């Protein structure tokens, strides 16, 4: 490579961002990179809506009395916080933004297999999102994000049907994303990109897609049944007519437990990329990490009834589901151990993405281990429907999934935007998020263990100290989430132009321009190396002249 090509060109090259301008060029694009950015805008919008509900919940819980809102409004607040965050932020977050952007780049393809279906998927998401917004603005819904019957079908007087249909529509967007990924990974890999050379990010997205494809249709039909039952009084879930409410819970959790892995698996894929890059080492036990993703997807479908231990299922079923839930811990632990082993004797760099990865490791481990507490029948009976459960799943879904998402956004931001973000601010934000998160949710473990139930808007005064800590932490966490948004936007205009490979990282996505051209690569790449060949990269360190992010 000559010096001229290594330096930053003064005239901007043609890329996917500057090739076309105008609203139409975005709304009718079939470029996976542009659709990723459309998704980025939309999920960020819903993240802040969901965050706004969380803020109101934490403000209400600042004092033991029900002073800010009354019971009915509080029920709506936690319901809509859950629905928006789960179905309109967490599920699409990493796959639809980073996955959409990176899957074709990482395997050396020009686009996803079905670009128009990719765009359709975004429109379905938007239609579902608008329905959800309309539902929220015209009265909201109060069933909890779980839609439990017969409350949702017979008793709730809120907009259950509309919320259910919004999630039904958004579900198809998730199915189509998964379908696109599976076909793309099977059929569009560049020459030489064998399955054993795929980045672990791709393996994680493949596993995620399997869950999206097999799980989402089941919740779709379940929501259809709930809506039909509510509108037409069918009796399928109504105990008065001989219907079985437990059947609803089985169908609901058949999707909604694996859905947790839709949130965490892509995040694990990101962590594998970041830890290998910032330890300057090939990932330890590549095939174990790859197949543990598949194992999590498969086992994930066999554990749903651990949400129902106190709902009246048989003792023997509970025993089996408890045992199977323990089994999911095995592939998860394999990943954590392999990431740790990768760092062992590596040359570790403490850049912002790596800080998020560290945060992920700690928080996911706490979330995962408390998951084992909950999988144990005896402890689960004690802490069911308490803040212990709330703290546990926020450690996984926020501490795990969102940490990975933010880490990934920092890692690939130079590729996405063609600009470098301010490293100092990014490190500060990572620290604030970590501190704010723990201050918010660790007290909730204790609260739950000493008996504070979830979904209550009042509580005895002795719980107040821990609740004040939690609310204070949530404020800090909010600042930590706003900061990256501010400096990412800032960097799009004022950030230093990014070189093609600012981290000297392995992976095809770093071998094309930043930002990439519309068809990703000027020449079709041919892969002749193993994934994470950091041994080779380290022998040819980045030249001094090239501005590097760190």
């Amino acid at each position: 490579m000559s010096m001229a090509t290594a330096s930053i060109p003064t005239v901007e090259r043609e890329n996917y961002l500057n090739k076309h301008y105008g609203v139409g060029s975005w709304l009718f694009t079939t470029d996976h990179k542009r659709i990723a950015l459309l998704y980025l805008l939309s999920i960020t919008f819903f993240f802040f809506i969901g965050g706004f509900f969380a803020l109101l919940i934490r403000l209400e819980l600042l004092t033991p009395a029900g002073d800010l809102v009354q019971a009915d409004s509080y029920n709506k607040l936690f319901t809509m916080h859950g629905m928006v965050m789960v179905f309109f932020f967490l599920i699409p977050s990493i796959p639809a933004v980073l996955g959409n952007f990176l899957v074709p780049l990482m395997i050396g393809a020009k686009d996803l297999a079905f670009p128009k279906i990719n765009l359709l998927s975004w429109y379905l998401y938007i239609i579902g999102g608008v329905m959800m917004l309309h539902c929220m603005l015209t009265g909201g819904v109060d069933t909890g994000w779980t839609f439990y019957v017969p409350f949702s079908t017979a008793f709730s007087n809120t907009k259950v049907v509309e919320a259910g249909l919004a999630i039904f529509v958004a579900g198809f967007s998730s199915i189509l994303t998964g379908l696109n990924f599976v076909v793309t990974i099977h059929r569009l890999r560049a020459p030489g990109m064998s399955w054993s050379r795929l980045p672990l990010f791709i393996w994680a997205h493949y596993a995620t897609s399997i869950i999206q494809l097999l799980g989402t249709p089941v919740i779709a039909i379940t929501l259809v049944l709930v809506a039909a039952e509510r509108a037409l009084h069918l009796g399928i879930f109504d105990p008065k007519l001989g219907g079985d409410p437990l059947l609803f819970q089985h169908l609901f959790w058949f999707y909604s437990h694996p859905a947790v892995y839709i949130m965490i698996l892509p995040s694990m894929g990101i962590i594998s990329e970041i830890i290998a890059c910032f330890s300057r080492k090939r990932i330890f036990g590549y095939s174990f990490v790859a197949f543990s993703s598949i194992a999590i997807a498969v086992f994930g479908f066999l554990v749903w009834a651990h949400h129902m231990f106190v709902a009246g299922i048989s003792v023997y079923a509970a025993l089996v589901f408890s045992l199977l839930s323990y089994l999911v811990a095995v592939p998860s632990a394999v990943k954590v151990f392999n990431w740790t082993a990768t760092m062992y004797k590596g040359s570790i760099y403490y850049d912002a993405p790596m800080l998020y990865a560290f945060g992920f490791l700690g928080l996911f481990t706490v979330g995962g281990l408390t998951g084992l507490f909950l999988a144990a029948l005896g402890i689960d009976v004690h802490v069911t429907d308490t803040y212990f459960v709330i703290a546990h799943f926020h450690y996984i879904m926020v501490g795990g999934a969102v940490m990975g998402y933010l880490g990934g956004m920092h890692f690939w931001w130079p590729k996405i935007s063609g600009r470098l973000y301010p490293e100092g601010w990014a490190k500060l934000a990572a620290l604030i998020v970590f501190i704010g998160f723990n201050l918010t949710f660790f007290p909730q473990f204790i609260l739950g263990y000493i008996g504070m139930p979830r979904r209550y808007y009042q509580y005895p005064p002795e719980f107040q100290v821990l609740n004040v800590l939690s609310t204070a932490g949530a404020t800090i966490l909010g600042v930590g989430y706003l900061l990256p948004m501010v400096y990412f936007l800032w960097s799009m205009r004022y950030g230093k132009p990014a070189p093609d490979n600012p981290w000297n990282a392995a992976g095809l996505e770093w071998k094309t321009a930043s930002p990439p051209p519309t068809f990703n690569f000027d020449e079709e790449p041919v892969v002749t190396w193993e994934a994470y060949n950091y041994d080779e990269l380290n022998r040819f360190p980045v030249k001094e002249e090239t501005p590097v992010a760190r």
Partner: protein
Amino acid sequence: MPDSQLTAAHNPALLHHFAEPQQQRDAASLGTWVFLGTEIMFFGGLFCTYLVYRRGYFGDWGAASKTLDVTLGATNTAVLICSSLTVVLAVWAAQTGRRRLLIGNLLATLVLGTAFLGIKGIEYKEKFEKHHVPGASFQFNNVRIPGHPDQYANPSHAEIFFALYFVMTGLHALHMIVGIGIFIWLTVMAWKGRFTPEYNTPVEMGGLYWHFVDIIWIYLFPLLYLIDRHP
């Protein structure tokens, strides 16, 4: 441009992000099969629900099932199996470049699909007349349980049967309507001569979808109509 330069890159049906027509066909085929996999899970939730209540309310469901018109159901089964044959012939005609045979079979499929929906409509009308539609006006009194002449079926449990009957056959009919839409589009494309022995992927994929919808009915028919028929 001489014919020799007309390579795969100039194939008008080849999209830019595929290297060759074979890769594009493989992607479409895998995509369709994966989609049908999600459809199985979609209907799977209903089959699972069916299983739970069939086990729980065995006699009541037998009594409810016996009120369905097995002749109309069997006729519809025959109609759908015939339509699967015309679909296979259409795919074969497309692959071998027989345009008129292709159009004829697509039209035949459309006629058979519409006939199915018509017969289904007659059955639905009958349900309304007999007050077998779940809801406020549902009636199922004094119906004896087959094999137990001294016992009457529980109307609530029979209502769940009819609820599932309508959801399952309704969802199936919705898929038929989508299928008819796809086949109208295929007929128009075939009329314009878009399908050749080299490029006929849409016919094949539409055919896969049609067969899938048929197979769903092949399961629905015995589960809904035939569970308690004795000579």
